[in-house]
């Protein structure tokens, strides 16, 4: 593939162990993000005596983030650079990039939406901490899902040798 940037991208270490650990870490981060918001939701139902509770509005940003993560990581990586090969069909790379853009937009929209909910629902009415924590949990949860997606993406792009597949 012809180089586009003047600075070369640093080569990631090619290790099957590192790749596997990255995928596990990604799942752990996703779980952390999901359970942060679930914890806030259960807490607001069971322990919090205030009049502000977690509703579907707080869940929508996280759902957007999860959908974006699903879209991003469903794309076949090799199709993104498929234009340089002759056997790829009509604009497969273009379609892949469009879908990828929609995935990133969903994910960033999720994070921005969580920040919006935090500000509009909790910060502007100036609620004290345990209630304010619901909004913070939403933001941190979306950020965790985003981080999980980044880790999954990077660890799947780690170049691996064929020995990995053969040793299975």
């Amino acid at each position, binding site marked *: 593939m012809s180089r586009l940037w003047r600075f070369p991208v640093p080569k990631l270490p090619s290790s099957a162990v590192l790749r*596997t650990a990255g*995928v*596990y*870490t*990604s*799942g*752990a981060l*996703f*779980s*952390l993000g999901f*359970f942060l918001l*679930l*914890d806030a939701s*259960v*807490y607001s*139902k*069971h*322990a919090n005596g205030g009049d502000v509770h977690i509703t579907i509005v707080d869940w929508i940003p996280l759902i957007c983030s999860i959908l974006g993560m699903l879209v991003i990581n469903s794309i076949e990586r090799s199709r993104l650079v498929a234009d340089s090969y002759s056997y790829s069909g009509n604009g497969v790379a273009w379609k892949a990039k469009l879908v990828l853009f929609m995935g990133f937009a969903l994910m960033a929209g999720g994070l921005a939406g969580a920040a919006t909910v935090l500000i509009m629902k909790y910060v502007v009415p100036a609620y004290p901490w345990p209630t304010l924590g619901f909004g913070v949990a939403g933001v941190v949860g979306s950020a965790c899902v985003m981080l999980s997606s980044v880790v*999954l993406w990077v660890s*799947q792009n780690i170049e*691996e040798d*064929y020995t990995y*597949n*053969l040793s*299975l």
Partner: protein
Amino acid sequence: MAGLKTIIALSFVLAIGFLLVILSSALYANYYPLLVVATYILAPLPNAVCARCSSPDDFIDGSGNGVLDFGRFLTGFFVVMGIALPALLAHSGIIVVPAMVMSIIGGLLIYGTIISFTMFFQEESDF
């Protein structure tokens, strides 16, 4: 390396893990911590299923790797869920903190037993 002593030690650890989880439920007459056992028994399943579903001999394209990675992702999800679920219940005041501690330790012991059992006895059973 994997002899009779390993089996005995692993079964002891498994029994201690179950003891802790059941104690954390029964002491406080609140059976939510038993969910941890279900989580940790579920945790090794995605790897086992996805290892069968993937095609390891197709090493040209590496198309089986997506399924494998999905299994690992789910495993990581379940392992953190086993820790996060008691913490969530304790934070919300549904279970008390000692029950949380006991169920987390017991769950980790159970999961460690399952993992080390498959690690010790994989070669004999597979080939």
